[in-house]
């Protein structure tokens, strides 16, 4: 499959009064054409920072991409000046944010907010932009779009607003859409509708989606592949099947155990004990070491090497090392 976006060894830091926060520490993943990759992980593990880096939306100062590449159409977005990035933002790569109640400007009509993106990028006439906006509103499932165009955000419900936010992101027919927790702020029924919409849109437009979430239920519904993040790193990545049925990393297993299941009766919910690592002074070795029940001496000192479990399935854990396998055979 064609790789449309490649993130390579991305490092992002924030300079704060308390010191340097190393929020993202060597994230690598590929996005294929027409697929949905889900990035999952606990709060603070660096999901949003990764997404914003791709869009060039890391506030600088205090933030900075300190290392790595973001390759898109032969360009390295990490090194592109803002003037050039602006042409890509919203046009080729667009982003959807978490809270639809605050993501829209309260003082502009939604028509204006949908149209201005395409007017900016394609320099088309307002009448053409309006036609396009009507099409897009139809696509995202807003009833009677013509009269809705002149209304303001406060005249829509939360679910409707999220559809409008999605419409803004789609108006320029981008190749990549990044959705940062697009359903977290919505209630469950609306959440399911929005996820359906994502699948529907992907079928119709072939857009590649990076979906950020901490909800494995969401992952199960829409993702093709999954990247599990922990402490600013991707610790396991694979297809949805591989991650759900053959998880390898202790953290991934812990995540799956902490999700309620309806298929197993009386399944015990086991939250992962402990707290995520301090990103001011991240551990040199495995970031999960403080919470891992299998932690070995080596885990504390040296970052685990990559182990390939399948074509796409990569794990970073010392337990996968042949040497550990022999000595831990019984417990593992």
């Amino acid at each position, binding site marked *: 499959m064609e790789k449309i976006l490649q993130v390579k060894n991305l490092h992002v830091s924030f300079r704060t009064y308390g010191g340097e926060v190393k929020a993202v520490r060597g994230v690598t993943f590929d996005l294929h054409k027409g697929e949905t990759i889900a990035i999952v992980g606990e709060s603070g593990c660096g999901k949003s920072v990764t997404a914003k880096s791709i869009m060039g939306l890391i506030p600088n100062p205090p933030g900075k991409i300190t290392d790595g590449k973001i390759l898109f159409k032969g360009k390295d977005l990490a090194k592109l000046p803002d003037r050039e990035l602006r042409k890509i*933002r919203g046009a080729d790569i667009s982003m959807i944010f978490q809270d639809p109640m*605050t993501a829209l400007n*309260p003082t502009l009509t939604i028509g204006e907010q949908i149209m201005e993106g395409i007017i900016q990028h394609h320099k088309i006439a307002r009448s053409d932009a309006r036609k396009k906006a009507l099409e897009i509103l139809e696509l995202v499932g807003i009833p009677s779009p013509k009269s809705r165009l002149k209304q303001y955000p406060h005249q829509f419900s939360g679910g409707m607003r999220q559809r409008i936010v999605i419409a803004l992101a789609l108006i320029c027919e981008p190749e990549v859409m990044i959705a940062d927790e697009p359903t977290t702020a919505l209630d469950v029924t609306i959440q399911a509708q929005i996820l359906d919409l994502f699948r529907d849109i992907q079928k119709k437009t072939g857009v590649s989606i990076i979906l950020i979430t901490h909800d494995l239920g969401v992952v199960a519904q829409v993702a093709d592949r999954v990247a599990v993040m922990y402490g600013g790193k991707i610790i396991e990545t694979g297809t949805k099947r591989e991650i759900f049925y053959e998880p390898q990393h202790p953290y991934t297993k812990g995540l799956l155990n902490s999700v309620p299941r309806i298929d197993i009766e009386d399944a015990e919910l086991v939250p992962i004990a402990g707290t995520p690592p301090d990103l001011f002074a991240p551990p040199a070795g495995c970031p999960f070491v403080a919470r891992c029940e299998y932690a070995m001496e080596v885990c504390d000192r040296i970052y685990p090497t990559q182990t390939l479990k399948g074509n796409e399935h990569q794990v970073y854990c010392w337990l996968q090392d042949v040497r550990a396998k022999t000595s831990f055979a019984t417990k593992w």
Partner: protein
Amino acid sequence: MATYLIKRFFAMIVTLWLIITLTFFLMHALPGSPFNDERNTSEAVQKNLIAHFNLDQPVSVQYIEYLKSIVQFDFGPSIKKSSQTVNDLLGRGFPVSFELGMVTLVVAILSGILLGVLAALKHNGVIDYLAMTIAVLGISVPNFVLATLLIQQVAVNWELLPVATWKSWRHMVLPTLALATGPMAIIARLTRSSMLEVLTQDYILTAKAKGLTPFKIVFKHALKNALLPVVTVLGALAAGILTGTFVIEKIFAIPGMGKYFVDSINNRDYPVIMGTTIFYSALLIFLLFLVDVAYGILDPRIKLHKKEGR
């Protein structure tokens, strides 16, 4: 909308009536009379004059008479400046005061917003500190002090601009500057803090994610929202500028309404006191109404008419 306007209009009339009534009785409660000044008018003449202006009648009768003439927009004669009516004085003074007030308001609003936006965009930079220093000075130095300083330095020492009076645009510079600096400073500070707050909002990130230019993000998405709190203080600022004109007109010998107003109080020139007060009040009430309308236009969430639930 129409019902709102009608309701609002009646509220404005009632407010004005309250002001008229209050001013009328307070004024008559002041000790002193228009006629006992240093000229030593004889008892007989004073009696005649008092009778002529109906001042011998009970206050309640005078009040009724006054209301009657007011509804016909007749503010009566001036007691001190015989042969002139209050309408004459207002007709002559108002255009000048209006010019001074409006120019000041426009200068204060435009420069205040510009300064505030610049300060917010260069948050904690040199421009920010410079702008906020100017703002603090502008708020803490009273306009009459600034006026005298400006006259001394710019007009007398440097001889760049005329010292006083109101003839050409060159005459307008110093009074406008003296009067506009305070309100400008308030607007600048308010714009800055409101702008800083708005720039952290999610919808600004959305606007950036669309690939809009920084110019569009600031002036189309941020400024309109940032101006909402600024608009709410405009009414109060306009009031401040109005009262400021009394002092500034006096200092710069500008032939506006302020001069008549101040003189009339010293002279107990009742009709002029009433006339100017009513005029200023009406103007202010109207300005506050304009501010409300502007707010409704800027913020679609505020509906001038109550209907149309969501």
